[in-house]
């Protein structure tokens, strides 16, 4: 009899719910839940285990099934019987809890309300690494949804045990514990502080050089979630001596390790100029630039934002970014990438680099960035956000740019809002530089300026007047539109002197 029921329900598990996609079959499986429920109270331990496993698989597959499992009142029974059972049952029960909690915050709340957190903490204290892993995973999926649930997890006293789990030798356990710490600390600074107080940073920092790629992903993600909240937390992370080890992560073969490494550096750099200075001094900027050059797609995004943040703090840092050859990869990003948000980030970063002084603007303009930005701004397919960022970047750079050959090509196709800045710059530089005046005439710039129609009294008109005042009357008249007609009319009306 025992064998029979065991084998019957093991066969139920082998027809795993993954193969079934139909709604009426779902309804059938829901009734299976009510069948499985009494088996949880069976005398034979294997039957209990297998029943729990079946419930877990059902809940894992679909939200409705998970809700059915919760509604059938299985959770209190599971939670109550957990401490006396053996390690296989504990693992399976943790699997069930995690399968339910992963779908939505309400289900996770239901799991918490059934008193699962204390039992999961008991599981975390167990000796078997598999049980610990199951419990960690369940905590992870619960804490992921919102700050209140994370707070509940922290109040259950899970954090010190998680920090202990990180130090265990099994890689899978380390991975999942790091992921849990990351999900707990991502919600708010207080939670991050709790994680830091448990001494997590030192252990996480020690695991950065580990060769396992998935572990590195989780560790870097955890550190970046901690560092992102405030300057103090970022300084604490930096004090754990992650530089320059983190830079080796930027050269890893796994794309997501690179992305998370760049995210970590970005979160540290964005808080204050001193931290950015530290990163520049340790060569972080060069590593990030190389990383941007070698990746494609969303993986580049944190690196681009990091360069923008570093350059935004002060002009010396911005010059350091320029000197580390940061502008060509950013320009390449602008041109190559298809996603709008990455282009917007690249445009923003270039704006931050070029906005400080004329030198910076010259470097940025020299990389042939301005026509690209203008194209993006004018392009109808760009999203609103992208257009706005491109415009702001253009404005910032143009207001400082005194390098006229770079401004030249923009004259010809700029829309009026940008034109005013370009003409403004010309009007500032031309009165003082005679060679530039000559060049301006020969390259057809003066002609273009005459063709611009501006409202009288507007800023644009003032700039145009300032430019016209730099040149003698004849030239201005020569280049004004319709001059050839005027001349021809004069020819027509001329009475030849016989």
């Amino acid at each position: 009899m025992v064998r029979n029921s065991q084998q019957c329900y093991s066969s139920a598990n082998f027809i795993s719910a993954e193969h079934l996609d139909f709604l009426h079959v779902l309804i059938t499986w829901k009734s299976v839940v009510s069948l499985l429920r009494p088996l949880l109270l069976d005398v034979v331990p294997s039957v209990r285990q297998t029943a729990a496993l079946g419930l877990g698989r059902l809940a894992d597959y679909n939200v409705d099934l998970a809700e059915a499992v919760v509604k059938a009142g299985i959770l209190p029974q599971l939670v109550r019987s957990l401490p006396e059972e053996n390690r296989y049952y504990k693992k399976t029960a943790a699997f069930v809890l995690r399968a339910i909690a992963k779908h939505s915050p309400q289900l996770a709340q239901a799991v918490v309300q059934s008193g699962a957190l204390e039992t999961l903490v008991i599981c975390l204290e167990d000796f078997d690494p598999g049980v610990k892993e199951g419990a960690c995973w369940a905590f992870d999926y619960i804490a992921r949804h919102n700050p209140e649930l994370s707070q509940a997890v922290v109040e259950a006293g899970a954090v010190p045990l998680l920090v202990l789990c990180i130090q265990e030798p099994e890689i899978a356990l380390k991975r999942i514990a790091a992921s849990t710490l990351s999900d707990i600390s991502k919600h708010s600074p207080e939670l991050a502080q709790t994680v830091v107080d448990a001494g997590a940073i030192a252990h996480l920092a020690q695991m950065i050089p580990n060769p396992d790629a998935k572990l590195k992903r989780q560790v870097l993600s955890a550190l970046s979630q901690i560092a992102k909240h405030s300057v103090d937390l970022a300084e604490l992370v930096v004090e754990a001596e992650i530089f320059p080890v983190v830079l080796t992560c930027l050269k890893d073969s796994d794309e997501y390790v690179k992305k998370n490494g760049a995210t970590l550096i970005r979160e540290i750099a964005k808080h204050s100029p001193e931290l950015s200075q530290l990163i520049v001094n340790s060569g972080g900027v060069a590593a990030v630039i190389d990383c941007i050059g070698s990746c494609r797609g969303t993986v580049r995004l944190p690196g681009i934002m990091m360069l923008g943040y570093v350059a935004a703090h002060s002009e010396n840092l911005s010059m350091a970014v320029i000197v580390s050859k940061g502008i060509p990869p950013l320009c390449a990003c602008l041109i190559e990438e298809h996603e709008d948000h990455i282009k917007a980030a690249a445009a923003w970063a270039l704006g931050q680099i070029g906005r400080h002084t004329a030198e910076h603007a010259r470097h940025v303009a020299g990389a042939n960035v301005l026509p690209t930005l203008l194209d993006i701004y004018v392009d109808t397919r760009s999203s609103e956000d992208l257009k706005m960022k491109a415009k702001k970047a253009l404005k910032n750079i143009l207001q400082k740019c005194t390098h006229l050959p770079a401004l030249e090509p923009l004259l010809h196709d700029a829309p009026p809002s940008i034109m005013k800045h370009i003409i403004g710059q010309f009007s500032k530089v031309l009165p003082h530089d005679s060679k530039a005046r000559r060049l301006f005439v020969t390259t057809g710039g003066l002609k273009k300026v005459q063709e611009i129609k501006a409202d009288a009294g507007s800023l644009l008109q003032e700039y145009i007047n300032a430019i016209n005042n730099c040149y003698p009357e004849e030239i201005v008249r020569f280049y004004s539109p319709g001059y050839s007609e005027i001349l021809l009319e004069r020819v027509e009306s001329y009475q030849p002197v016989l």
Partner: protein
Amino acid sequence: MAAASGGREEGGSMAALARLQERLSELREEYFLANRSIDEDRKIKYRAAVKIQSWFRGWRVRAYLRHLNAMVILIQKWWRGYRCRKHFRKMLEIQKRWRGYYVRKYIHNYYALKKYLQAVSVNNAFVRSELQEYVEMKENEEKMKDLEKKEKEKKYQARKMHYLLSTEQIAGIYNSPFRKSPDPMELLLRNSKPLSHRRKQVKSPFAYELYDWPTCKKPPAFVTALPLPPIGRQKPQGPFRDTAEVLWQRYKPLEPTLRVAESINSPLEKAREGIKREEWRNPIHDNEFLPFSSYHKNEDEKYEPSLCKSGKYVREAYGTKHFREVYPNKWIADKDFRTVVPSIFLFEKFGKTYSRAGQIV
């Protein structure tokens, strides 16, 4: 009065004169009084006039003085201001130069910035080269791992297909007579040992538990298949039972009760472990005594003599050839033991505190 006196002029001019004379004394008094009052008036008026005039003059002078004062103040003001400003301009000049110098030297030091940027680029180049080396190292490691894996695969294949080795009479498939030299596979076959049929268990059950249980992807194994007997074996001669039956009986799986199977503190496990421990602890020799028939098969498991009996290159003769120490003098020295620790004074007195009267010396 005049009319009355005029009317009575002819007859009354004498009377008028008398009347006038009567009033003469009064007249004098009147005249005196009138002059006196006028005099006093005049004095008062005079004093008043003087007062007024003095006041007015004083006011005028004061006004003039005030005006002068104001002018003086104005002029002094302007003068002092001008002087201070001149002085200030001189000071300002100095301060300007000082501030420019200070800012250029310490705050916006152009040359320091230039040096810093150069240092940054040098550091960047260094970091880049280091990272490049790291990447190359990783790639090399991966390549080595791949190569090793391939080598292992090849060797395993060679061992498995050892029967394809060419013999004296028949050339194997890798050693075609039309080739100039044998195929590398042939050489590999020559160097490899034939694979014995028993392969070691690769997966440990512990690893299986860890990685598959939490994801609950692999089901708990319910072993139901029986081990099959080898194919085509000759039935051994003699009154033996059927091989399949024998094997079934011999390899019948353990069917412990569930209580025993699931509890890690089961007495069966403990008993087994106890026996194992005893066995591990007791033997003198690690390798069990091997049967002679398989002596040549497993050549790497040779008989190793015990440590006590093996000398540097050969087995020691002591214990088999001779049993007594040959050079006794090696071990007997003429020097007595050297005391390292100073003797305890109290113990020196042992047996010597009392007299030696009763002792046999």
